[in-house]
């Protein structure tokens, strides 16, 4: 006896929705407030994840600042921020804290943890806001 097609489809649909543990990824802080600091990346999910730390230009979309889809090249990124390692795995429930140093504070960028999770590319992004360097002291005028 064949199952009712609609019911069979529903069963398959539910199977697709519930199969496999959810994947997750967390990053902090979301604002890099200091030129030197730490970023923490965590995997609260149930499976290993592969993480890449990449630098993205800032774009305005729908009135909000967000990260462009294409990262800067590693060479360009290394001129903006020093961070090691930029690629590693995180086991379930684990986290890792990495020190960073912003090398070029005059340029806006996002530092994003990027993880390919199933069909998604998941990013959580930390913003560095460009800081104006103080103007060089002008020479004293002769009296």
């Amino acid at each position, binding site marked *: 006896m064949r199952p009712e097609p609609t019911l069979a489809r529903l069963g398959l649909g539910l199977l697709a929705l519930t199969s496999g543990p959810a994947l997750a990824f967390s990053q902090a802080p*979301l604002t890099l407030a200091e030129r030197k600091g730490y970023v923490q990346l965590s995997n609260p999910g149930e499976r290993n994840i592969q993480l890449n730390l990449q630098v993205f230009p800032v774009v305005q979309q729908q009135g909000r600042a967000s990260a462009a889809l294409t990262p800067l090249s590693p060479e360009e990124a290394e001129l903006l921020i020093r961070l090691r390692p930029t690629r590693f795995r995180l086991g379930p429930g684990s986290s890792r804290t990495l020190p960073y140093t912003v090398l070029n504070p005059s340029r806006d960028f996002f530092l994003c943890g990027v993880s390919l999770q199933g069909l998604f590319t998941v990013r959580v992004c930390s913003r560095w806001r460009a800081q104006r360097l103080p103007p060089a002291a002008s020479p004293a005028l002769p009296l």
Partner: protein
Amino acid sequence: MGRKLQHSDRIGRPSLRNHYNQLAFHQALSMRSMLSIGSRPISPDRLGAALLIPVLLGGSCSVAAAQVGPNQGVNFGQALINNSCTLTTSDGSIGVRTNRGLITSDSAKGGSFNGTLAAATISASSNLTSTGFVRVDNPTLTGTTAATSSQVKVGGGTTWASSAQANLGADGTLGATPLHVRFSTTANNNRFANGTYTASATVSCFDGL
């Protein structure tokens, strides 16, 4: 009042009995002060004195044990608070319309499909507020025939677009939210050719500050 102040001269004697006597006296004084406030008007000066005396006499009435050693401070480790965001995803699945003109995960599109259509879900938790948001970009189809239109839909609405945003709630969370994709093509006579197709998207979390 004068008699009460004489009594307070005994404060500081080390005997435990005196301590209990002071507490009992303090209690009686407090009650008497309350009664006098209730029975007739009291001047601000006298009210201040009435409130001050119990403090001078040794603090709370509820303490019933003598202190036998020095105070000991208790410290807690420091806490670092930073904006954070956690994204959680679960995959969906796509099917193709029997006329081969549409690949989607959204069964609400109508028509007959081959394959199992199911939404993906995304959720977010954070210590942000509603300034934070989740963005879905770049729906991509890989397979034999390239898509010429790629769209996403977040939530239960009807709006399809090349990208979508969902605000976090005031508590900084986004509950499990369905995410759909759909693709069509003008190549190959508007029909997706035989082959294996995979859909993907980029999901990002920003603090919006």
